């Protein structure tokens, strides 16, 4: 390994800066509050170092990396089918959604297209994982703000969605169901009817959330005007998904840049935006998204075409040389894979662009001058999954 002088210098500088983070926080005026890596508000192992003046945050620095698993490196030693079992652990709440962009990228490089039936079922499962993910957000936000009851409701009704995912894929959390050229298996009998019922439950959860949390005056006082992120800042940080739509940007990859292989055009649905850009707006957007999502699933369930679920692909998958970037609108925001193939069994390089990484990098900007409880509100409303930051 050649280490040039400039690298050495950079390394030394970084060491010093690393040490400075701790030192500086401890010696300057005011108090430093170290939240995490084990802290209830950071669901996962995110560490947040906040320099306080009384209850007010002077500076706040998230320190990720306590769960870094090096997926980009690991992907380089795994064959394409093996990679999906790995990457559905990135955002572990919406794990099927993690597989899709990678599979689509591989399909793009191979010029394979999944049969229509597989595409529709894939889209349904994609939306189910969105429901499983965001419904937990609804519950978690309540828990972070002190209203624990909604957390239990969310877990209760999310169960129905997970059961459907399990009934189809066999895995509640890590389906590993998406394959290059289609899906692993077809749906079991009775699944469609049960999924309709689960969607009914999810809509009920939305109503309950609206009554119990969103409409609550205390909740509104806690979230309105807190953590306002203007559009420019949001795009500059690369925030995506509901966080970006909450700043008034009408942009949804499912509608605007839906990669082939997903059939969102078969459903009639709406992209919601909110002009405020605060924590309330982010919550509201996600609530509406869950509702839209249930409608998408309902419509797609009724329009599953008959046919095979797997295109013709070789048994041993070698992906032709090339580079492909596919991004989809995952529950947390834009998730993309930049896949570089050298015509081998394994990808040469996989750059994983995960949504939470960009979404959370805005935290130092947005938490300046807020109160400590607002840090919790902002973190909860930005909504991150730690695996999605650390990868």
């Amino acid at each position, binding site marked *: 390994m050649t280490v040039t002088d400039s690298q050495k210098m950079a390394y030394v500088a970084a060491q010093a800066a690393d040490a400075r983070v701790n030192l500086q926080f401890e010696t300057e005026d005011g*108090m*430093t*509050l*170290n*939240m995490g890596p084990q*802290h*209830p*508000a950071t669901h996962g192992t995110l560490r947040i170092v906040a320099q306080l003046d009384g*209850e007010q945050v002077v500076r706040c620095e998230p320190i990720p990396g306590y769960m870094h698993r090096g997926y980009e490196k690991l992907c380089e030693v795994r064959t394409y089918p093996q990679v999906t079992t790995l990457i559905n652990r990135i955002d572990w709440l919406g794990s099927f959604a993690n597989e899709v962009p990678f599979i689509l990228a591989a399909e793009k490089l191979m010029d394979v297209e999944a049969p229509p039936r597989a595409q529709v079922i894939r889209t349904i499962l994609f939306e189910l994982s969105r429901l499983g993910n965001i419904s937990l957000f609804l519950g978690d936000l*309540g*828990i*972070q*703000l*002190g*209203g*624990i*009851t909604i957390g*239990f*409701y969310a877990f*209760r009704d999310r169960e129905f969605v997970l059961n459907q995912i399990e009934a189809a894929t066999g895995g509640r959390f890590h389906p590993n169901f998406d394959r290059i050229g289609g899906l692993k298996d077809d749906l079991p009998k009775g699944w469609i009817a049960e999924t309709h019922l689960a969607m009914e439950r999810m809509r009920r959860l939305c109503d309950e959330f609206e009554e*119990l*949390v969103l409409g*609550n005056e*205390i*909740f509104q*006082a*806690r979230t309105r005007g807190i953590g306002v992120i203007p559009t420019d800042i949001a795009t500059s940080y690369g925030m995506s998904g509901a966080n970006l739509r909450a700043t008034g940007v009408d942009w949804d990859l499912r509608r605007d840049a839906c990669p082939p292989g997903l059939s969102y055009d078969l459903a009639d649905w709406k992209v919601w935006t909110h002009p405020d850009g605060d924590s309330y707006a982010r919550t509201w957007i996600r609530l509406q998204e869950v509702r839209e999502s249930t409608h998408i699933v309902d419509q797609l369930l009724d329009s599953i075409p008959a046919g095979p679920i797997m295109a013709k692909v070789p048994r041993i998958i070698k992906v032709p040389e090339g580079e492909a970037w596919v991004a989809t609108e995952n529950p947390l925001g834009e998730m993309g894979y930049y896949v570089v193939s050298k015509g081998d069994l394994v990808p040469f390089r996989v750059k994983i662009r995960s949504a939470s990484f960009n979404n959370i990098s805005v935290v130092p900007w947005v938490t300046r001058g807020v*109160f*400590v*409880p*607002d*840090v*919790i509100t902002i973190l909860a409303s930005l909504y991150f999954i730690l695996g999605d930051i650390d990868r």
Partner: protein
Amino acid sequence: MSGLIFAIELAYWQQTLIKVLVAAVLIPTTALILGIVFLFKMMSWMQSRMGPQEAGPRGLLQLAADGLKFLQKEDIIPDRADRFVFKAAPVVVLASTFLTYVILPAGPDLVIENLPTGIFFAMAVSSLSVVGVLMAGWASSNKYALMGGLRAGGQLIAYELPLILAVMGVVIQAGSLSMQDIVWAQADGSMFGFGGLGLPFVITQVLAFFIFMAAIQAELTQPPFDMPVAESEVVGGFHVEYTGFRFLFFFLGEFATAFAFAAIAATLFLGGWWVPGVDPNSALANVVGPIALFVKIMVVAFLIFWFRFTYPRFREDQLQRFAWKYLIPLALANITITGILVVVL
């Protein structure tokens, strides 16, 4: 009236001993009852769960089992903690709770000490817990505990005022500070000339009742006013460093105080041990009284815990603003109106 059923003359020390034993058994029991009925069972039902099922019939002994578990746990004191203050803090909190029970009347004769300034005494000793909380927060040598303790200090002091001011309305109407006299005033009262139901002050003092409920919610640091112990930010606040039986003290203190406050609210606003139809001067009142009081306490406690399981929490500055800008002016207005009406009518 004294000695209607306890006709036996007891020496002072005998009376004291009985009272001490009653208190020592009663107070933890009340905490257990509230904990099981509301924290375990009602909360579970409100969250589509069944709650604990294993310990005892339908899990009713779960809290006793938890208490035993706490006793077995290692007593950890942080290295840099102020050991004496750290150890003393739970005792101070619990002492404040115990003292509150002194003036609670459960019947015409069933009261540990019928002080002429009963409610004043209750308010005074209940604010003692703030000292314990601050001690715990400060002595733990933990930033979360410190923040939680200071938040609790600020909050308890802020909500002490609406609490007392809300009580003032009742006191003006009853014309006495004694808890027994307040009960009697409600028993003797009449609504539009109809005296069969007496006059529970919740009817005339409805505003004071709501202010009182909000204030005790804050005094108990329960949602929506649980910022000092918010587990999602300060991870339990002032008791974050406590383990074992010291934590148990805080836990017991919290629920016993909830019971005491519910009892005060029941006495001040719902007529305490008095039941319509039972002659308060008869011996029967001493038997029915405790039951009636218990039922009323459970009603009030249900409200307290219902709010607790439903609402998210206020931010620290918001709850201060709520106290100073809304509750206190409202309470003052209530006192003024009550005073005018009492003089005019």
